[in-house]
């Protein structure tokens, strides 16, 4: 099929204004948007700039706005869009460096601010040298372990568009992953950051983050759970185990 691809082009400091370049391509409906970009860059316009790495929906490099929605270019097929007019733009809320490449530093700054790593200063148990966790406790934060830091959620969030100081959904998801980990003792430090005026309270439950997440993380629910801990001071580590029990477990 023949399609038209309109791509946002801009080099701040060089171009006076952003523009949209249009390319006409013959494609297979099962091709991915990333394939179209590779095609354009390889055969039509080598100056086009975009990020990509694994190309299989794991690295989170190629988040962009595809027909107005934040998506990973490597996970969207042409046929998914149900149109022959495709508009590709950079994710919004972060500064454009070139074309579809944005400056991710403010995003990662917010991510680092929630201390996204296990904090436990207790001595290791001498016998097993392992901090045990039940399957239900592991299930409690399973959903939020899936984040690949693509920024699709944070840059789909209207409060973040208006105010870049807002910690944003991705950072809250990664805080959730450790706050609800029964082995972690750093919840109070994270909650201190998240209770700031630009912390978790800036979320207005728009649900754009949940809709944008390529990993289908229930982001708005995770944010609500963090708010609940801040309101009650109580963390419940017991989750619901999904799927069959491990073979041989007694």
């Amino acid at each position, binding site marked *: 099929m023949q399609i038209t691809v309109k791509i946002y082009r801009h080099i701040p400091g060089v171009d006076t204004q952003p523009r949209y370049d249009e390319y006409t391509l013959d494609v297979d409906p099962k091709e991915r948007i990333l394939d179209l970009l590779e095609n354009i860059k390889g055969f039509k316009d080598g100056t086009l700039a975009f990020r990509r790495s694994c190309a299989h929906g794991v690295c989170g490099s190629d988040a962009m706005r595809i027909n107005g929605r934040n998506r990973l270019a490597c996970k969207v097929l042409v046929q998914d869009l149900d149109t022959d007019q495709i508009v590709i733009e950079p994710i919004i809320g972060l500064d454009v460096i070139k074309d579809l490449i944005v400056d991710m530093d403010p995003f990662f700054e917010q991510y680092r601010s929630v201390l996204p790593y296990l904090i436990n200063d207790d001595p290791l148990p001498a016998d097993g040298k392992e901090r045990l966790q039940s399957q239900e406790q592991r299930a409690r934060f399973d959903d939020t372990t899936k984040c690949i830091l693509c920024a699709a959620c944070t840059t789909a969030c209207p409060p973040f568009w208006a*105010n870049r100081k807002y910690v944003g959904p991705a950072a809250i998801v990664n805080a959730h992953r450790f706050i609800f980990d029964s082995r972690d003792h750093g919840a109070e430090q994270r909650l201190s950051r998240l209770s700031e*005026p630009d912390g978790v*309270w800036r979320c207005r439950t728009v649900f754009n983050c949940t809709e944008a997440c390529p990993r289908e993380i229930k982001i708005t629910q995770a944010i609500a759970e963090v708010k609940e801990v801040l309101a009650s001071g*109580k*963390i419940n580590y017991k989750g619901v185990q999904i799927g069959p029990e491990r073979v041989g477990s007694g």
Partner: protein
Amino acid sequence: METSTIAPNTRQVRVPKNYETTAWKWMRYSALLLIPLAWIHVILQDVIVGVHRIDLNYVALRWANVGWRIYDIALVAFAFAHGMNGLRQILAEYFPSPKARQTLGWILLALWFVITAIGVVAVVGGVRMPKQ
């Protein structure tokens, strides 16, 4: 010697007590209270009585009961406080500086107070029937 044991399923943590947390809780509690307050108001005034039959006589009759006066003051105070807090949340996105947000908070609080005070004066003052 410490042994490997599974941690308990719940833990109490110290959470910072601050204005934003209190404002968020206020939003939830006032919303819960507004559900009966607003629904009873709508059902009574708009469905059972009907807006076209509300006149001074009806208001005088209703406010003869002090319970309805307290009810109406609670409705205006909580509905407006809930709305002002929502407006504060939205405006905070456009005013990132802490100083501007603080000033805005005071302005909205003052606005809430003025509107609520006008409502209270009206309700407490009651209905003065025109001379025939």
